[in-house]
């Protein structure tokens, strides 16, 4: 068609076409098109930068600056006492990475205990919460009478502030509390020991399983009914439907919920602090350790612990996004696809043209 439509004398007017037809020079056809677009990008880019800059500024002030300050602070040791005057010196000595290397020597016991407690709480509570949360979501998803009441009541624990639920469970786990009455056996939950760990796990699961339930419920509600109808026609059992349809389709929402819960659990502070108390080896988390150091005016080691916790949280989040493909920022995967698409576009067009 092109051959017949273009007379030979018009050829000089279209110098590009010849080049465009040559497969060896694919970028050439893009030039005329890209030029106006890039100019537009420069304009919109400037506008975008202008519009985004307040956000970036705020982020710098409230996120970047404190983080850098904490990093800097973590390089300083505690102030020393001058035995002659009896006064603490005014300046903190620069100790380099000593606060970090101390976790392998003198401060090691306490740090690693806190580290393993944090990990233990995260793994145990999040696993339990995931199972219970999914169960709650399945119940809430069912259509039955009084469903709204069940939904509301499941969400009550999530609505209670953690500090308050800490107090609440402290009374329940009191030596004469309802927990022991129901058990018919006196367990000293709030003493320092393994039972304290269990108490924290119970209280935390009670409090946050509804959160997972809520997010999974949202995921469940977008699964079309037809999928289940088709599965039923194919003779899939209820269990098969759950494993093959519900779980895979609810996975994006579930992953986000689990990720959020993991990050929350890693930062756990108020529940063990109020329920069991400060400086209890069996429940001390990294946050509690950092707070304790700071309250004893050792800001250097406190910052070091906080930075390590930050890294730990960061690595867990990264692992979730990279390994499990959790769609953290709703469309992160989408843009990635879009990008590869965009790269593919000119090539295909070239092929079209050459064809």
């Amino acid at each position: 068609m092109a051959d017949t439509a273009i007379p030979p004398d018009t050829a000089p007017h279209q110098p590009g076409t010849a080049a465009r037809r040559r497969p060896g020079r694919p970028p050439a056809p893009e030039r005329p098109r890209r030029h106006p677009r890039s100019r537009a990008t420069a304009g919109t880019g400037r506008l975008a930068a202008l519009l985004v800059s307040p956000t970036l500024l705020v982020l710098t002030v409230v996120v970047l600056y404190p983080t850098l300050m904490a990093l800097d602070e973590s390089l300083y040791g505690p102030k020393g006492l001058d035995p002659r005057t009896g006064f603490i010196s005014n300046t903190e000595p620069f100790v380099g990475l000593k606060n970090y290397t101390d976790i392998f020597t003198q401060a090691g016991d306490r740090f690693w205990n806190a580290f393993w407690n944090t990990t233990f709480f995260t793994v145990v509570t999040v696993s339990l919460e995931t199972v219970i949360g999914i169960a709650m979501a399945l119940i809430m998803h069912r259509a039955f009478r009084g469903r709204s009441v069940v939904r509301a009541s499941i969400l009550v624990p999530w609505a209670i502030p953690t500090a308050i639920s800490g107090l609440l469970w402290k009374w329940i786990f009191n030596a004469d509390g309802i927990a022991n009455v129901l058990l018919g056996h006196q367990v000293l939950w709030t003493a320092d020991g393994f039972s304290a760990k269990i108490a924290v796990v119970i209280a935390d699961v009670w409090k946050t399983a509804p959160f997972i339930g809520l997010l999974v419920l949202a995921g469940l509600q977008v699964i079309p009914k037809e999928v289940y109808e088709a599965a039923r026609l194919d003779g899939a059992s209820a269990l098969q439907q759950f494993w093959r349809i519900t779980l895979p389709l609810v996975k994006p929402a579930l992953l986000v919920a689990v990720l959020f819960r993991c990050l929350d659990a890693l930062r756990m502070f108020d529940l063990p602090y109020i329920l069991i108390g400060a400086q209890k080896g069996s429940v001390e988390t990294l946050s509690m350790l950092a707070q304790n150091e700071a309250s004893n005016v050792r800001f250097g080691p406190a910052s070091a612990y906080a930075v390590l916790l930050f890294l730990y949280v960061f690595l867990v989040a990264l692992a979730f996004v990279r390994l499990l493909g959790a769609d953290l920022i709703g469309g992160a995967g989408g843009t990635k696809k879009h990008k590869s698409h965009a790269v593919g576009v000119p090539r295909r067009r070239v092929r079209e043209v050459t064809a």
Partner: protein
Amino acid sequence: MKTSTARAIQCSAALAAAGLLLTACGSSGGSGSGQSAQAAPVSFKGRGPITYVAGKDTTGTVQTIIARWNKAHPKEKVTFIQLPTDADSQRQQMIQNAETKSDAYTVLATDVVWTSEFAAHQWIEPLPANQFPLGKMLQPVVQTGQYRGKLYAVPASSNGGLLFYRTDLLKKAGVTRPPTTWAQMTADCAEVKKLPEAKTMSCYAGQFQKYEGLTVNFAEAVNSAGGRIVDASGKPDVDTPQAKKGLDFLVRSFKDKTIPKEAITYQEEDGRQAFQAGKLIFLNNWPYVYSLAQKSAIKGKFAVAPLPGLTGPGASSLGGSDLALSSFAKNKATALDFMKFFTSEESATYFLKNASLAPPYADLYDNASLDKQYPYLPDLKQSITKAVPRPRVVQYGDVTAAIQNEVYAALTGKKSSAQALKDLQGDLQKLTAQ
């Protein structure tokens, strides 16, 4: 036009203020240094509004006293800043204020164990000791405000441990006087437990949860057995036979159920409730229990005595609060006057009458009319005069944590008392080495 005149007025006002300030600084600075040359080079200058910072006032009496001051000093008003009730958060906020060198806090109500730490960090000013009636106060209480021989905090209230006991049961069992030694107490318990109504009761409890109360109770046990945690020069001295006898009393009592098993989770309130519910024959607690127990089921069935010890009456730990002056505050002359007013015998009497706060003044305990209102006052006086302050060390937070760790391990049977004391001695040596 308008703006420029406004600016001019502002400028001149600022200049005038600066001038005033300069002259004020010059004059009072000069007289101050001349006056108190023998003490620290601190001069208390500046008059005007100040703040008083303390934990939440649950009795309403602090506000009344401040209102009294404000009425008499309209130009030097005191604003009451209320912090949370628990001591840890109070300390936290005061430290934060000091770390930022803020002048928001002027007069601080400090716990008796914070003085060394606050003074060593120079968060609080040394005070002119001769301007306070310290001679009329109980000496262990005065000591709580001192650091390296200088006064940094003035006692505002005191507190000492008391032994609460069930008079009705002891009488029925044929015991006429409260015990003065631990052995006597255990023997009395055995007698009382023979009574049918006391079969399920436990003998004794204090505060053994892993928190500050455990340090208090451990210090009491050690001091009551003739031991000590730190010696006169502040060096740890806890790995001794006397200290072991003290700790052994607690460990043994847990083992033979003289102290009930659940007391390992007791804080002040848990013990009080157990005592009021008729689960305990003897209870070691602060005097505040008295008025509350009078309103409970055991009203009129209990009395107080000084704490028992190994061979005779024991030694209590000191509680209470002192007043200190923030180093970063303004109007320190007013602050000093307010501190004198707040810690005066008159104010202390008011606090005793209306909030049952133990006064630092010795003669108030011998006042017949007050004794009628609070029958425990003579015992409390004895408790406080024989009391030993908890270790007065700069790193108190770490010291108390170390004590709690080791003692808790001993009480729960994870360590022998000998091993716990040995480890504690090592920990404390490290903490006080600097």
